[in-house]
Structure formats: C-alpha cells, structure tokens
C-alpha cells in the first residue's frame, strides 16, 4: 500500500467534508468505532415519506474513514430506506476510486457503511447481519 490510495476525491472530501454535523430528532441514528485505530463515525438521517431528506455524519479519524463517510452521505440523499438497507460496499468503494485498499485500511473505508447499516436495521427492527458492511 502507498499514497496511491489517496485519490483526489478522497483528499477533497477529507479537506472539505460534506454533510458534517448532527441532526435534531433524526429518524435513523447510529454510531460505531474501529477499535484498532480509534476512528469514530456517527450518522443521523431524517426521513420524509420513507426517503432520506437530510443526512449528516460526525466523527474523527483518518482521511480514509472521514472522506468515505462524507462521500457516502452524499450518495444517500433521496434514497429510500429499502435502498439504504441494500446499499453495497462495492458502490461505495467504486465511488472512492480505490479498489485496492488492502486489509489494513478497508475497515477504515467501510466504517461509515457499517454505521449506516446499524442505524437502518435498527430503524427497520430487523436483525443486523454478522458483517453488515460486507
């Protein structure tokens, strides 16, 4: 691995995160951290007619985890709850433009997706799969 993973889109979202902050009275809200490196992400979502009308993330950590969260929240606007629950890691990784993150950093990139899944499954009242981000 090297600085090849620091694609322009990642650096752009790292320097200028989109949708950063918290929502008051969100319909979906969850957070998680990566115990290995201490990355922390929370995601708040407000729904209107079962569709994402507002979304914010908050947290701290490395460029990969934070930019991935920023990119993810950008992708989720106007999606239905069903689409949230079915959102795949490939969609996110493709957007990140870094297919070969390697085992050490992939967890950073997928932390935000994991948080999204935790929140969405909680909202739906269905049981979380073992590796929700995969």
């Amino acid at each position, binding site marked *: 691995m*090297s600085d*090849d993973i620091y694609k322009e889109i990642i650096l752009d979202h*790292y*320097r200028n995160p989109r949708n950063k902050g918290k929502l008051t009275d969100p319909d979906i809200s969850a957070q998680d951290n990566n115990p290995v490196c201490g*990355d922390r992400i929370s995601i708040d979502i407000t729904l209107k007619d079962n569709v994402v009308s507002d979304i914010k993330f908050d947290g701290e950590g*490395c*460029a*990969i985890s934070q930019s991935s969260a920023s990119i993810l929240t950008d992708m989720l606007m106007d999606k239905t709850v069903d689409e949230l629950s079915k959102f795949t890691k490939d969609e996110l990784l493709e957007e990140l433009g870094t297919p070969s993150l390697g085992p050490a950093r992939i967890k950073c990139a997928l932390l935000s997706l994991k948080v999204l899944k935790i929140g969405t499954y909680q909202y739906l009242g269905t049981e979380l799969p073992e590796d929700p981000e995969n």
Partner: protein
Amino acid sequence: MSISNFQDIKKDFPIFSRKINGKNIIYLDSAATTQKPNEVINSISDYYKNYNSNIHRGIYSISIEATELYENARNTLAKFINANSSRELVFTRNATEAINLVANTWIPSNLKEGDSIILTEMEHHSNLVPWQIIAKKLKLNLKFIKIQTDGSLILDNLEELFKENAKFLSLTHVSNVLGTINPIKDIISKAHNHGITTLVDAAQSVPHMSVDVQTIDSDFFVFSGHKMLGPSGIGVLHTKKKILENMEPFLYGGDMISNVSLNDAQWNEIPWKFEAGTPNIVGAIGLGKAVDYLNNLGMSNVHKHEQELYSYAVEKFSDLKEFKIFGLENKNSTGCVMSFSYSDFHPHDIASILDGESIAVRAGHHCAQPLMEKLGVPATTRASFYVYNDESDIDKLFDGLQKVRSVLT
C-alpha cells in the same frame, strides 16, 4: 554527529537485502517485533536438519543433544538477566502467556475477595486484561498508579496505594508507547515493605538494556523472545525459586509430571512442572542464539546506540513544523521508541503514506488505550529503534514525513 556503534550490522539481517518497489525496507517497528539475524535463522534450520527429536526423554543421541541445546538456551537466558539459577526460568509462549500463568496460578492460591492488585495507567493490554479477568472472577479490586503526560508515573502516593488490602503489584519496566523507564527497583522495594508480591513486565526493557533480576528483586519477571532478535512463540517467566516451587501448575500434560497413575499424578520439579507438553524447542534455541548475538554487541552499547539515535531524531525533527514527540520532556527513557503526532494528520494516513516509501512504522493505540486517553489522542504514530537502525533510517523517515504533508495538504 555520527552514530557508528554497529557498522555494517544490517548485513547480519537478511530481510534488509529485500527491496519493495525498488526501495530498501526502513524498519522502524522493533517495539512490535524485531528482525532476526542470520545466527538465529540458521540455528532454527540447523536444529530441524540435525537434531530434530523430542527432549527430556529420548535415550538416543539426537534427543540427548536436543535436550542439551534446549537447556543450554535456558542457562544462557538465566545468565543474561542474572537469575540466581536457571531453574527459576520457565519458557512460555511470550510475556503475555507468562502473565496469564501467574494470574491463573499464583493469584487464586494467594488472594481472596476484597484484596487489591495494583497496576499502572501505562500498561500494555497484556498486563491489564488478565488482571481484569481474574479480579472479576475472585472479586478483587484493581487500583492504578497514575501517569502524568510527560510519561512518568506519579509515585508520591505509593504508601497510600500499598496500604489496606494491596497484595499484588504488576507493572511495566519500560513503556511501549513512550519508552519511559520506571524506577522499578525502588517501587518494588516499597511494595515488599508492605508484603506485596510483584511482577515486572520487561518485554520492552530486556531487549534494550542490561537487567539484573536479583538487583530488581522482582518476584515475577516476564519478557518475549521476538522483541529481542529471537523467534516468535518463545518467552520467559522468571520467578524466585521459593515462589515457583510452591505454585500450582498452569497447564497439565506430558513432561510436567513425575509420576502418573490412573487417578492421580505428581508434578515434575521446577521449571519443567510449568512446561506441559512438547515445548517450543527450536524457539528456545533460537532465543539463546539471539542472546549470544546481543551479548556480542554488549547491552550497554545497545542502550547507548538507541539513545544516540533518539537524540539524533529529536534534533532532526525539531525543524519539522507541527511535529510533537510524546514524553520528550521525560529524560528517563530508553530512547528505543518515539511516539509522535504530526499536524492533525491521522496516524493511519501517516503510516500508509510512509509505507509507500517502504518505511515501516506503527500507527494506532499500541495496545495501550488507557494511556492514549491520558495523552488526549486516539492514536499516535510510533517509530521504534533497535540495533540495526542508523541515522539514514531517521533521515528517510524525515523525508517520508515531508511527503505526508505534501499528500495530505
């Protein structure tokens, strides 16, 4: 300034002839594990080629030779830490297993509900979690010697901590995050005055400085082979003879028994009573060779070399903007680890970009989350030095950090 204590030493370590993307490996993670010299690597293949057999029971030549190699390694290790007798040394998998051994054998036989175990806030998880578990099981209390941000322990209230039901003290000799050398001799002597039994986690000290368990006077003293040029999977528990003799075994099985009937068994003598099953024979032999190698260098030279490297790094990096070394103000440090923050760049990003330059550093909480909390950071980047590092490694790290800034800003 020139640091030439161990010239051409990299030649002894075959990994340094490997190139990744055309670049030599700049290895700055020896606090995690060290590289191995040819002497150690060759001793392993030599054993399997020429002596492979089980120990302590064969009547034939190669088994007798293998037993001798294994027990000679124990003698070498015993001399290295100046143990009173090699019978006081138990081979374990690593320091972690040695700590678990003590937590699961000595503690249940000697502590009772309401008693306290004293630890410090700078412990590696391996010297924290085993005590948490046994404390929950036996309803013991854990109490902590606090640390200040310069990396040193707050020792002025020891008498207070050691009063009441304090029965056991376990602490690290050297911090794996900050390199702080704790005044363990003094702390142990005070603990003994209160009748407290002591354990020293020496995983980060034995590789870097000369130690003497008789002077330190610890009851238990543990370290790992892989952090001192030896193979992984071999470590040492040193215990005062009187204590070891009265301890219950940890694991049960072959080699640790003297006599077995269908319903009962008697235990072997120390230290074999604590080495159930076929041990890591080749690991012990390899570790013995690692100690020979370190003895050839001289432990005081090793210590001096690391301190010189550390000083060189501190001076070099003083020019770097927004670069902060943790524990810098503490003078009582081995110099073998340099934990730092660099601007607001996350340690994982720093480590990833350095990896692109073939520089290996550690990023994260270094198995010391409570200490990270104290330092007020989620993680640090850690460069750690050993005998094979030199000024050019630090120069490359410096250049690598310039690259980090140019990528991330």
